[in-house]
């Protein structure tokens, strides 16, 4: 017997479109979910107004992680911005470095060497797998399957070991610079990477059996949190959220960048865009990324320059211009809008994170009529990373 909501309790709308909710009437309760809860990596809270068990209205509150990056970058020279840029998105920092470096290179007229493009793609794919692993742990945890988070965090740690070998740091790599990358692959990297990928595939198989074939997970997630395909353009939905609705939106295929034209893969799509399908799309995306890493390691050139000729970075002035660079990160379309004005400092850097559109307007739309116990699962299924919303 499915749950049929009782619409007779619904608040009426006022003349200006806001809901007529009287909090002192005892019928509605205001509940704050946040700013800290498992599954969401970052602080973002949702102010829910519930009537009984059902959410009537939700408002997203961000700003707990605001550091004013765009203002700070205007005070730093181009090379000084490079270490600070990866802190904008905490769990998947490499995309920031790549988009910033590509934007600066484009405006300065520098072409990064081919070998560095391959290494950049390798790093981006490794970061994508890490991000999906964190998501799978969070999504299962939101529905009570705590063991998945233990497995995926462990396997993510193995990949962080590979990052440490390659770049020197676990989380903030600061490896992709304007002009190229800082170093090549160490000795024996291919063998260790292959071991890590095999471990990852084993874990994914376990995750599939424990999470995706689990009756409780299926019952709680199938049919819940549906994104209407008509909303995709209105709300700027990109990435796996859009692909689970049947639209194959993948920047790696639509507007290929780096070495993606030479790699062979197909974007993963799903049909019913509910929580289960989005989780499944992301799981299959991990398998695609694992395959991509194997292709990259097989096809990568092993010799060649790693950095292009960059002028003296202490006195680097870039001519006036503006550009927008986009890439496909694990959550959707990530972009950097850079404006320069001929001085040694960027005039304006605007970071467009995918969670900016997913977590604000889309979530507030989707959260109406949801049962209160499903709110956490719904929030996590949009795969938001709050640091990139308020930067």
């Amino acid at each position, binding site marked *: 017997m499915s749950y049929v909501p009782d619409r007779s309790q619904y608040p009426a709308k006022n003349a200006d479109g806001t809901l007529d909710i009287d*909090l*002192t009437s*005892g019928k509605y309760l*205001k509940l704050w979910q946040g*700013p*800290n809860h*498992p599954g969401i*990596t970052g*602080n973002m809270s949702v102010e829910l107004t519930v009537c009984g068990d059902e959410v009537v209205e939700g408002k997203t509150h961000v*700003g*707990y*992680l*605001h*550091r*004013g990056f765009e*203002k*700070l970058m205007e*005070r730093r020279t181009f090379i000084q911005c490079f*270490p*600070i840029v990866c*802190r904008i998105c*905490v*769990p998947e920092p490499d995309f920031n470095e790549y988009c910033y470096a590509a934007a600066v290179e484009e405006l300065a007229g520098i072409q990064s060497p081919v070998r560095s493009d391959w290494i950049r793609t390798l790093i981006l794919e490794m970061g994508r797998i890490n991000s999906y692993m964190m998501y799978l742990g969070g999504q299962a945890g939101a529905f009570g399957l705590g063991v998945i988070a*233990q497995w995926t*965090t*462990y396997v993510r*740690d193995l990949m962080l070991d590979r990052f440490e070998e390659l770049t020197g740091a*676990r*989380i*903030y790599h600061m490896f992709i610079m304007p002009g190229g990358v800082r170093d090549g692959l160490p000795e024996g990297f291919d063998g260790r990477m292959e071991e890590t990928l095999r471990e990852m595939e084993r874990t994914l198989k376990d995750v599939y059996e424990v999470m995706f074939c689990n009756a409780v997970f299926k019952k709680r997630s199938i049919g819940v949190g549906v994104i209407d395909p008509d909303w995709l353009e209105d709300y700027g939905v990109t990435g796996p959220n859009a692909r689970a609705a049947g639209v194959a939106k993948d920047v790696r295929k639509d507007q290929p960048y780096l070495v993606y034209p030479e790699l062979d893969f197909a974007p993963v799509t799903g049909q019913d865009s509910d929580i289960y399908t989005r989780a499944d799309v992301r799981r299959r995306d991990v398998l695609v990324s694992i395959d991509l890493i194997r292709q990259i390691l097989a096809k990568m050139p092993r010799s060649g320059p790693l950095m292009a000729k960059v002028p003296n970075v202490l006195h680097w002035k870039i001519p006036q211009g503006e550009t927008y660079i986009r890439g496909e990160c694990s959550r959707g379309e990530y972009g950097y809008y850079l404006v320069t004005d001929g001085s040694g400092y960027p005039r304006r850097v605007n970071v467009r994170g995918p969670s900016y559109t997913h977590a604000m307007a889309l979530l507030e739309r989707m959260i109406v009529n949801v049962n209160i116990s499903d709110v956490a699962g719904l929030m996590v299924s949009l795969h938001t990373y709050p640091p990139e919303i308020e930067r």
Partner: protein
Amino acid sequence: MSMKPELMKRMVKGPDGVEFEVEPLRDYYCEAPPTVMPAAYSKIVEDLFNWARAESLWILGFGTGCGAIEMRPLMTPRFDAYRYGIQWRPTPRQANLLVISGYLSVKTLKRAIRAYEQMQSPKYVVGLGSCTINGGMYWDSYNTIKRLDDYLPVDLYITGCMPRPEALLAGFADLKKLIKAGKGEGANQYAANFAWYKANQKRVIHDWDMPDYNW
């Protein structure tokens, strides 16, 4: 700065029809400021208590900034903080260690103060990362605080940006030594200098819509 309507003083009608007045900021919180709690027992008993407190550090699960991402591996078998007696608890009432993991924006500082004041004494604060020490790489940002120990009494700093899980475990081991030596007096320091801490906090938090002491 106007307060939210549910925090204002107003008349409410109870379920049995009786009307009464509520003032949420005064009614739901303790009015007295915190007191200094000196060691009440003989040294050997206090040493035993300190040993017990150090070996069961329960951390409030509030990831305030970047550093939260290196706290998650600690809960997995690879780095395993649980063998040291360290657990993560969801509510401040059950926690005795608050880890400020990274920078604190003013908005989060308000919530962190609230969480800290709701914890029960004796309680400790660990500052993770260089942002708690001197602002880190956001030293010129208008929204992050630069010195954590102006607002909360810090017992230990763990440096790094960000610190590895092993560095966190080493930091916790140092904190345990500190507590066992009887030097984990953060809560008493907070109570003794309550007015000073409060003045600092109110200087940066402009919309203060909570009571002075959130017990």
